[in-house]
């Protein structure tokens, strides 16, 4: 029994081939064409697993681009998929914090791995990967450098949650010759503030698994974890938790003999 999970996110598109264990993982940029990105990532993941399309029994799509995939058998939201994926990687997971390109979310996971409650940021890029991307653009640094600069520096206070307003605020700080390091630290603290407001709205039990592209940066993870006062499980490849969850949903359905 072989399943595929395709997660078409706003920034990256991910695929996981699963047969009880993970056979292959592929991550590519989504670009402007989510449909094509979804197709390409699937073919590449087959290639890496040494499989043909017909070897796959079930394909499940997730992520905002799930609606554009014509070759999938089923679509499931990233909320359900992240809960499933995180639970598989860290069986004691009761909370998932995911910071993706376009949104951030906190998911309360029931003991059986189902979603008990969730909250997403509203209609806005505050506290998302996109927020960090814009800010690193102004500072002319990479995300990795942002993390390094931020760790060990006192944060300057950035009050705007809105990406566009925060951008203006940082331009003002640069004009006042505030150092890049304190601004970098301030930016990471802004993400933490947004997370605190999200985590206070759903039950946030240990263990907490941190997924999404931002979790790739170890310094940012350390800072967030110390501000929130919690320990994170960080997957080896935090971006693929959703795609893995999608493959798991397909696998579970096949085992139960469900069609839908």
């Amino acid at each position: 029994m072989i399943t595929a999970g395709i997660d078409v996110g706003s920034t990256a598109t991910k695929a996981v081939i699963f047969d009880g264990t993970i056979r292959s993982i592929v991550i590519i940029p989504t670009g402007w064409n989510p449909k094509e990105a979804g197709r390409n990532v699937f073919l590449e993941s087959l290639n890496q697993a040494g499989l043909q399309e017909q070897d796959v029994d079930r394909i499940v799509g997730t992520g905002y681009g799930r609606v554009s995939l014509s070759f999938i058998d089923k679509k499931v939201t990233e909320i359900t998929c992240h809960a499933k994926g995180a639970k598989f990687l860290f069986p004691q997971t009761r909370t998932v914090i995911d910071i993706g390109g376009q949104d951030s979310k906190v998911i309360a996971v029931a003991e059986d791995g189902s979603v008990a409650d969730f909250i997403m940021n509203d209609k806005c890029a505050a506290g998302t990967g996109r927020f960090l991307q814009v800010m690193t653009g102004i500072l002319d640094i990479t995300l990795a450098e942002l993390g390094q600069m931020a760790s060990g520096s006192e944060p300057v206070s950035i009050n705007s949650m809105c990406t566009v307003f925060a951008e203006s605020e940082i331009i003002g700080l640069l004009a006042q010759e505030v150092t890049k390091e304190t601004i970098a630290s301030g930016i990471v603290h802004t993400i933490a503030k947004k997370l605190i407001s999200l985590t206070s709205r759903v039950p946030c039990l240990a263990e907490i698994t941190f997924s999404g592209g931002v979790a790739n940066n170890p310094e940012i993870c350390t800072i967030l974890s110390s501000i929130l006062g919690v320990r994170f499980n960080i997957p080896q490849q935090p971006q693929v938790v959703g795609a893995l969850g999608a493959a798991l949903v397909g696998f579970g359905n096949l085992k139960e003999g469900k069609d839908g």
Partner: protein
Amino acid sequence: MDKDLLGEFEDMRTNSISSLSKAKENGKKVAGMYCLYSPTEIVLAAGAIPIPLCGTSQVPISVAEKVLPRNLCPLIKSSYGFAASGTCPYFNLSDILIAETTCDGKKKMYELLAQFKPLHLLQLPQRQEGEEALRYWYGEVNKMKERLEIEFGVTITDQALREAIQLTNEEKRSLKALQDVSKLKPSPISGMGLLMVLYNRGFCTDKKEVVQIVDRLTSELLEMYKQGVTPFNQKTPRILLTGVPVGVGSHKVIQVIEECGGNVVCFESCGGYKAVYDQVDEHKEPLLAIAEKYLRTPCSCMSPNSSRFELVEELADEFKVDGIVDLTWQGCHTYNIESYSLKQYLQEKKRRPFLQIETDYSESDVEQLKVRIEAFLEMIS
């Protein structure tokens, strides 16, 4: 299926423009109303026609934003925009506007509206319990009666009030029976269909006619249920919608819920069950009975507003719902703040799955809403 069955209601709103104009030519007066707190009985007893005014469309919002702040709730902006742009025919036909001091945004907006039309403002108390609140509100209801007597040059008798009460009670009975159809599982009518009926029927100028058509629809729906005709099945997640007022034009969230495979079986909100679940006491002094009934209306502009929590809890049981969606408009402070307490109340007390959706009338967030709503439906199925 819904289309043939509900066809009569589809045109009700447009048809009422000509019947209103005709009635006005024959000397009838029209009172335009915005809110559930405005007693229609008094308008009817004055021999006038009560008509709901538009405020559920995105279109006039840009006009409103020339005057009103952008971060105000879309309902207030839409209501004002319709009036200011002259694009609401019912507003144009109104002889007087009946308004009320519910939330801060509305009461300040009404100050601006008063430049377009004669406007009577009912001063609501901020709480529902206690003799003082009722006494005060009774005075306000009485002032509305006196104002209409002067504006329309009539005397409103107790007898006329009693007749109006009987008529609106009968209308409430009929609308409640219709909504109770969705207690059946699976419901024979979609939430979108039900919303359209509840919204459009308000524009019909003849309440007796409304009762007849609604009763006929109710019995047709009951017959459909018996024959197993329904767009849903036993597994369709059943949703109760609470929160801000919704109507045709501001139906985005209901549409998304049903496109994602759910069924909105109960609208607790203003145009739905909240308006009809209890009646005006026909045995008391009519004006006092009216005051009592209207003051009981659960609304987040009241503090405390515990009766809303109890009503939602009760309806969640009666309609056998799987989840509750609390819809709040951006900039609606009272409903947005209250959502936190409602969630705690329902989750802790009843272990009810609860989702708050904060949005506006625009289509800009439909894809993001779909993620939340689909995930919520996955969670409760």
